[in-house]
Every structure is written in C-alpha cells, then in structure tokens.
C-alpha cells in the first residue's frame, strides 16, 4: 500500500488536503484560516489499519516525511491490534522521518454535541480553545443538514468563547473500501484529523468508562499512541460512566439544550432509537427539565424496545434508578436487563450443552443470508 501525490488545494473559504492511498483519493476539507500539517502523519494514521488488514507493506512517498515518534508508536499500535484481531497483520512501514512541531496554538476536543463530547468539553472548557466537528466519518449527509448542525454547534460554542472547526472528509468510503468497521477505525480517523490540524493537545472523548473497556479503535491504550512530537492525543472521560456524564451535562442548561445524540437524524433527537432512549432515561432519572427530547415512552413501551446491544448502558440506568428511588423505571429496566441475560443464557446453554446445534438450525430454517462481516477490533465471537 502506497501513500503518494499529497496535495493541498484551496477552494473558496476551505482548504482541501488529500493524498492517494492505493489509488483512493482520501481528502480532508477545513476552513482556510487554519494552517495544516504538511507531513505524512495524518495519512499514515489513516492508512495503517487498512494496510494491516491487507497484510501489505505501507510505503510513504519520500516527499512526505513522518514523525519519528509516530513511526515508533505504530510498532506498538500494530502489536496491540494484531493481538486483538490476528486478521490485522503486522506489516513493515517504509518512510522518511522528520520531527514535527505544533502548527496551531491552543487545544481542541472532538465535538459532535453528544453526551461524551459535551462532557469532555465542559470538563476542559478552561483549557480548550477550539472544538472540531467532523462530517464524513460516520455517514454522509446532504450538505444542508451538516450546515445546520455546524451553525447550531458553532453558536453553542460561541457562547463559551470557543471556536468550532468543521472538518469534512471522505474517510467513510475509504474505511468501507477496505471492509473495516467504524469501531475499528474510529481512533485512527480522529487521530488523522488531529495530526492534520497540529494543535499541541487534542482530546478524544470516550464512550466507555475504564471498567467497561474492550478492544475498540478508540481505546485508552491506543489513542495516545497516535501522538507525535507536536500533538498529544488524549483519550478523555473514561473515569465517568455515561450516566455520570449525563448528570454533568444537566448542570449546564445551554449544554443540555444543545445535546444531540440521535442515530437517525443529525439535528433532531428522534426519541425512539437506542441512543436517544438510553439518554432520555438517564435525564428522567436525574430529574432534568427542558430536555431536547420528546416525552419518554411508557414503561410498557420501554419493555418492548430491543435492548440487545445495550446491556452496559441499561445496567448503568438500573443503578441510577436505584439511587434516585424511581421504582417504576427500576422495575422496567431490570426486567429488560433480565430479558437480555436470559437470552444470553439460552445461547450459552446451546453452546455448552448442544455444541451450537440450535443456532445452526435456526440459521438454516430462516435461510438468512450470512451478513457482511466487517473487520472489527476483535474477531467475532461466533
């Protein structure tokens, strides 16, 4: 895999930095007013996992040097990722090195307006000068939707005297071209943007607390390893669980009013998806008013929600319900949790006692096409 043809192009009020990676033109667009890194670091960060997935040597065009610190760290990053998922192979990297220096003064945090980034923003607001809002990592939207979200977040941050930097990229397509899951590439994508902007400190808000960590692209062990001499990348907020963060956000009315968590819409919280629901429940339990969500569904409706992927957050909310003395929600959520646990038990029984017979039979009966499996941080468990 080769990184070459680095290019910087100005278009109206934005600047586009791009390079060819194995024929794919990966680009980042950001406001023209910010100087950007001319090193290979951002592209090395973006290309490392794809190269490991292909098991190919990664070559960086000699016209593009990389930081010796980052290059050294990629050896450890490779060890960690390879141990987590042996499908990601350890590969040689060929690059010329030159130490780098910070490019922009200050410190920034990645910011989507969700619970994690809102928490990190409030926690470090004294130190932060900027917040970076990315489009093109999770999904592509029409530009108007993104523009509205940028305006909303810029206004919110302006209230604190901070500046929003909107960054657009086509990383979304690049990662999927290599069949890499977003949970795997999350840390490296954010790192590539941080290395491009070159602020001395970049905060990556985490979604899992220290006692919930599992192999994932953004992880307290790996995130700092994407740093170079000029940019320190900090995995932030793992000391708090999601419910603790929600509580902190409710302390700031403007933060609460600006909270956006929805999986379905970039500008409105739908109130129905799992991410909206887990947040709404915590908000209800801490007694928050004026929340930017529709009314919480009835307990009966909550019991019917598919919580399959939510056991950690469900448990946190059960704890919170217990502490806040809300018996009705505690009963409802405990019942949902028990349902997940029992379903897991049935699966374990099938695996341990029947060698997975029922699972195979169910698959055969349903004639379901095997799903496309993206490469994740750890191999699939079945």
């Amino acid at each position, binding site marked *: 895999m080769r990184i070459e043809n680095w290019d910087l192009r100005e278009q109206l009020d934005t600047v586009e930095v791009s390079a060819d990676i194995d024929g794919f033109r990966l680009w980042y667009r950001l406001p023209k007013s910010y100087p950007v890194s001319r090193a290979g670091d951002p592209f090395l960060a973006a290309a490392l996992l794809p190269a490991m997935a292909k098991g190919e040597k990664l070559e960086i065009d000699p016209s593009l040097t990389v930081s010796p610190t980052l290059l050294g760290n990629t050896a450890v990053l490779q*060890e*960690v990722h*390879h*141990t*987590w998922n042996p499908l990601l192979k350890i590969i040689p990297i060929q690059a010329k090195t030159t130490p780098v220096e910070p490019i922009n003064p200050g410190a920034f945090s990645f910011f989507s307006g969700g619970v994690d980034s809102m928490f990190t923003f409030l926690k470090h607001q004294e130190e932060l000068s900027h917040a970076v809002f990315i489009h093109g990592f999770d999904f592509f939207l029409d530009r108007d939707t993104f523009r509205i979200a940028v305006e909303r977040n810029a206004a919110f941050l302006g209230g604190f005297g901070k500046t929003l930097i909107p960054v657009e990229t086509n990383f979304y397509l690049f990662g999927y071209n290599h069949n890499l899951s977003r949970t795997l590439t999350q840390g490296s994508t954010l790192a590539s943007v941080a290395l491009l902007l070159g602020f001395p400190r970049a905060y990556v808000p985490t979604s899992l*607390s*220290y*006692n919930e*960590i599992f*192999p994932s692209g953004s992880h*307290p*062990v790996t995130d700092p390893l994407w740093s170079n001499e000029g940019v320190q990348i900090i995995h932030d907020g*793992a*000391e708090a*669980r999601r419910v603790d963060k929600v509580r902190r956000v409710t302390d700031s009315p403007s933060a609460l009013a600006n909270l956006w968590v929805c999986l379905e819409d970039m500008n409105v919280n739908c109130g129905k998806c799992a991410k909206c629901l887990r947040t709404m429940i915590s908000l209800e339990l801490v007694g928050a008013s004026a929340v930017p969500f529709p009314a919480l569904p009835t307990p009966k409706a909550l019991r019917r929600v598919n919580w399959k992927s939510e056991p950690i957050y469900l448990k946190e909310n059960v704890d919170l319900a217990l502490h806040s003395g809300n018996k009705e929600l505690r009963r409802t959520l405990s019942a949902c949790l*028990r349902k997940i*646990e*029992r379903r897991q*038990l049935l699966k*374990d*029984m099938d695996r*341990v*006692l029947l060698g997975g017979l029922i699972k195979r039979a169910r698959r055969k009966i349903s004639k379901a096409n095997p799903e496309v499996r993206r490469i994740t941080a*750890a191999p699939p468990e079945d």
Partner: protein
Amino acid sequence: MRVSGLEVREIQDSREISVVVDGFRLWYRIPLSLPFVKSGDPFAAVALLPAMARGESLDIDRDIPVSPKLVQGLSLLQEIHHSWNPALKVVPVRATTAPATSLHAGAMSFFSGGVDSTFTFLKRKDEISHLVFIQGFDFYTHDGNVAAFSVEDISNLAQLSHLLMKPRGAVADFIKAGLSERTLQALSRFAANGLGPEALEEALAGDFERIINRTSIYDESRFSGVKLRPETRECLAKPAAGESPARLNRLLLEDAFPLEIARRDSSAYRTAVARNTALASNSGKTLIPVATNHYPFGYRYNLSRNLTQGSALAGIALLLGFARAFVPAAYSYSQLIFLGSHPLTDPLWSTEGVRIVHEGAEARRVDKIVRIAGEATALANLRVCFDDMNVNCGHCPKCLRTLIPLRLLGASAAPFPLGPTALALRKTPITTEIEKIFFLENIELAKRTDKADLHAALRTALHRYERRKLLGDLDKAFFRGRLKRGFRRRAGAPPAMRRIDTIPPQD
C-alpha cells in the same frame, strides 16, 4: 495516611531504605554497592492504593519530594482504579514536588524466573543490563531470634484478624483464649473498620511472644486438623531437654497459620538468588536482589496482591532509578483483565527519570512458553510454582498451566515433574475465568501439535467448568443465587475472607 521518617541504614551487606506509613515501617533492602533514588516517589507509589482503600488523604513528608510527573500519574491512576473498583476512593495527594532524574542509563527488568519475566528477558536481552529479583512480594519470610515475636512476623494482618475474630478450629480458639483484653479490643476495632492496625500489630506480637515462650502449645487433638511439615514433626519427636519451647511453638504456629505468620526461613530466597544470579551472569547481566516487607504491608489493608502488583513493582523501579524498567505482562492485550499491573496503568507510575514499560502483552502465555522452550538455559531456570520458590511442584494451577504446553512441545529437559496423566488431567478443576484463558490456549496448542489424548483431556476439563459456570449463571438469573447460598450453608463452609481487589466481588 502519612508517609514520613525516611531512614537509610546498613545491614550486613545490604542497605535498607525505609519510611513509616501509618505506623508501619516499610523497608527495602538493596545491595550496598547500588545507588538509590532518595525521594518520595517509591513510597508515594506503594502508599497510594492503601490510602485509596482507606479513603484517606495521602501526605508525603516535605523532606522527600515527589516527581511532578508522578503526581499527575497518580491522579489518573486514581481515576482508573476508582472506576474499576469504587471501594477505592479518590483521595487528595499532598507532597512537595521536584523532577526526578535517572541514576543509570540502562534498562532493568523484573525477574522471578517465571514464564513472563523469562520471556521479557529473552526478548529484550540487548537492552537489559540488570535483572531485579524480589523477595517479599510473592513470598515472605522473616529472620530473627526464635523466642522473639515481632510485628514483622505477621505476614497477613487482615486475614489473621479475620481468623481470630471468627475462630474455626481448635488452634484459633486456643490462641484467641490466650489474647489479652487490650488485644481483643484492638482486634474488634480493626475488624470493624480497619482502624488502628499498628495498635493491633503490637498487641498481637506481644501476646504471641508470651504464648510461644510459656509451655508447649502442642496437643494432639488441638493440632489434628493442621498439616505439620517434617521439620515440625521432627522437633515434636525429639524434644531437647531443657530447651525453651519457643522453637517448637513457633513451628506449630507457622504451620497452623501458613499465610498469616511468616516463616523463619530465608534459605529458599538465598537459593533462588544464587540460581538467578548464575543465569543473569551467563548472559553478562547483573542480578539485583531486593528484599522488602511489602507483603505484610499490603495485607495490612487487606489488599489483594493482584491489586498491588503494579504499584509494588513500580515502587522498586522508582527506588532503583534505571532510565527504563520493564514490567513483564501476565496477560496479552486480547485478555486484558483489570489487574494492578496493566498496560494502561503501569506507565502512569513513571517519573521524568524512570520510564516504566508494561512489556510482552503482544504474546499469550503459550506463545511465551514456545519461545522459552527453544532456549535451553532459560528453560532449565524456569520456576513458576505457587508453593515453592525453588522447585516446581507440578500440581498447582501455575505449574499445570506451564507443564502442559511444555509437554505438548516435547520440551524434554523442562524442570518439572512428569505431571498428571491425560486421564487425570480430565479431572483438573478450573475455578476461575483466568484459569480458563490458559486452558483455551493449551487446547489450541494441543490441536496444533496433534496431541489427541491431551486435547481431549483438556477439553473435558474445560467442558466441566463451562457446565458448572452455566449452572451458576442459571442460579443467578432465575433464583438470584439461592442455590449457591444453600450449597454453602449445607457444606458449612466459612464465609471466605474477601480481599480488596481490582474489581468488586462479582457475586
């Protein structure tokens, strides 16, 4: 919790560096020829978790400044440990600060002769100049006059107080009956809230000294449930006329309280030092033996060694001041279990002068054994046993998890007994998820090496564990653990002593 009174003195051929933490003199003995870092760093590292367990602020004496980098690390370490186990509280750390420098440009690695440290030694041979071997973390003994019983003879205060508060068995009953009123009061105070450890230690030491010097405490029925070692039986069989009963009584107490009272035997340590020194010098490296009384220190706060492992090693690395210190990892990145030594936490104990590196997590235990099996000298030196510092017993879980892959690899010169037959292996009890990890690795190796009989035996043992676990999970999910409690009641098993661990108890 206060750390104060740094003292340095020479004892025979070693130098002892000590401080008083909460009334306990915590010491480290290092070779006289070695310089050491005279700062608060090592002690701030080892006192952090006890202070968190007690929820008390940590105050380091102004005379011994702490590295600003370490102070920052301590605050992150607190966040992590508190998130893992909320029983460990976030506490203020008060200290004067001064940046640390390194005393040696080279790199050291901790070395016990086990699988992890041997692997790191082989892998980093070119960088490592010194190996550090510790006495007083995994094993603890204490030398001195047999007739005297000192605070240092108590190796696990938390557990000893638990056994004396709720004595089960004739020996504990007998000892409790012989305790003074003052000791009983100190005992109840400590058992209730962990307060006044120093008062309890002193009172217990005084009572034990009185008990061992009176008359023989031996009585056949009293000691019927205690496994006596040969030395004790010999002493019982040939009582020397006119000799004080102290030696016999001490041996009896050591046998009755093997984890709680320190043995008077440092010959095992000397043998181990000699063996590891030979291995080190064979490769042109220097072995540094370090003795400490960290073992009783941690147990004074009822902290499990799983929890204190990282900080105990960090304390020694910071004392010795090598620019780099490797801490061999016990688990690979894909098996990360919340332990005191963890890739996330180990580096946070570093200072400006000493970089602590969690090493070897890219390899699983079985991968490490494959590497060691190819190096005859390292293999011959391999010691992993839970029970003995110098001989691999071949029965304990650690010996088993090592000798099985060695047998699968056909490593003929391995320093292990033959071990159980395939048939016996089927019945090996797996008791923890951690043990299961090693079984899975060995099953994979058995498959790779085409050893069908061992493969089948290991799978049978694993299946039995999984079925039991399933039963436990069913009990938890449907009966809220009633079955388990019922079984415990019927078996009349005493409630186990619960140490403070990295994570809260799971049931």
